[in-house]
């Protein structure tokens, strides 16, 4: 079953994995749950296990310590899934491009184990909660375009 149809049957469930970021993006993601943005009213729910997730929300550039863990989490997420890279560090490593302990942005790490993975990029440092919600919604809408 493709992702869009699966997500339509119930609202998209999101698993957040923060790799090696400064946590600005992680906190803006958490902010989406708070009363002002209240992402749950759109049915977007943060789940506690990658095994229940439709969407993987990744933040931060991936340091060597985190690489295996990110790969393990990606393998556990049932396919098809969408990987959303939140923040400039997750899109392109940002200021940490030349850092010695950073393996690469999440898309490089995940493509190494799954070349067919689908990515969505939400740039910003950090992206505001409205941008994160819009990014996820746009991603789902674009999948709809692909279906039809």
């Amino acid at each position: 079953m493709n992702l869009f149809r699966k997500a339509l049957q119930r609202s998209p469930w999101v698993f957040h994995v923060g790799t090696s970021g400064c946590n600005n993006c992680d906190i803006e993601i958490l902010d989406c749950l708070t009363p002002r943005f209240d992402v749950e009213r759109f049915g977007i729910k943060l789940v506690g296990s990658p095994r229940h997730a439709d969407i993987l929300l990744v933040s931060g550039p991936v340091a060597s310590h985190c690489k295996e863990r990110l790969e393990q989490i990606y393998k556990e997420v049932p396919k098809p899934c969408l990987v959303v890279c939140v923040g400039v560090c997750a899109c392109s490593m940002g200021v940490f491009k030349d850092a010695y302990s950073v393996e690469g942005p999440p898309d490089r790490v995940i493509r190494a184990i799954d070349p067919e993975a689908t990515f969505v990029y939400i740039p910003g440092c950090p992206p505001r909660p409205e941008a994160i919600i819009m990014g996820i919604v746009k991603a789902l809408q674009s999948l709809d375009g692909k279906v039809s």
Partner: protein
Amino acid sequence: MSTVIPIGPFHPLQDEPANFLLTVEGEKVVDIEANMGYIHKGHELLGQSKTYDQVVVQTERICGICSVSHTVCFSHAVEDLLGIQVPKRAAYIRTILGELERCHSHLLWAGLAGHFLGYNTVFMWAWKYREPVLDILEALTGNRRTASIMKAGGVRRDLDEDHFPRVLEVMSTLRTQVKMLLDAVIDDPVIHSRTKNVGVLTHEDATDWCVVGPTARASGVDTDIRRDEPYGAYEDVNWKVIVWKDGDVFAKVAVRLLEIIESTKIIEQCVKQFPKGPILNEVKHIPVGEGIGRYEAPRGENIHYVRSNGTNMPERWKVRAPSSVNVPSFHASCIGESISDVTITLASCDPCYSCTERMAAVVSPDSKKILYSSADLVRMGQEKTRAIARELGRPPELPLKLDL
């Protein structure tokens, strides 16, 4: 017989590998060992190949919660090397933004502490009260976080005084909201049971482990860089250092909430007496030398050391964020606590999420199987609160009035 327990992450909704390995006997913690490195990106090495202005940009991304702290602290280090002062207006701008950051950081922490204790309403309200503070930061600097305004010698951009009436309004409302939170916390018997005499860090241990910030002030150590090595506008405004003697989690909660109230008063005074003048004492060249800069971040003393060899890139740049000295004090405050109290004890020193990365779960030393995950440990803490509430005949959530 000892069992090793990893302690889980502070992120309420994540389940990640542990940072701390606790050895327990029965229900009591007897030893703690750190297992870190997940967030390590090599800032110091990276900074050696960046110009001083680029280092400021990089410094902002050391920690998202205290980004103003690190940029100003690095600027202080360069200004110490040069022996220069910043213009008065720039000092006031740095103070206003720094205190707004302290408000947002303490409210963020209050929300997380509420969650760990089992009061999810407190989490939602604290983070809701935080939003107007981020709105003002956005109005003044252009971004909710990462102001990108600091520079060695002053600030890059001025503040628009048209926003100041709104700043005063938000500070006044915030003070009332935090006083309400404080009254609820101070009077609630369930919170007393969960936090009084829990995770005690004695004055002697606080001195021996060289802790800083609210963690130290809650143990009776009178230290605050804003008073000890004044910078910004702190010598021009009336404010006081909050010190409590008990050293337990309750003291740490009270110190942080009272500091938010002090911060609102500092911001109001700065706004009302905002001086005119230049905002930058331009720096053209950094000669050979060394400098040390300090700043009172929300978590405590931030210290940066810079050594210059006369080029436009630092020869050595050392960063010590406050959590680096606060977090090891767990060796003193966690030993002897029960497993269900460990999460709130660890959270009470407010480890900067990006400084302490993630926490861990419990693993049997023999079979290496996970006995308790981090989520389990958070849940155990929350269940203990509910059990105490039932015993005392209290409602399971704090009976706070709705939003003002």
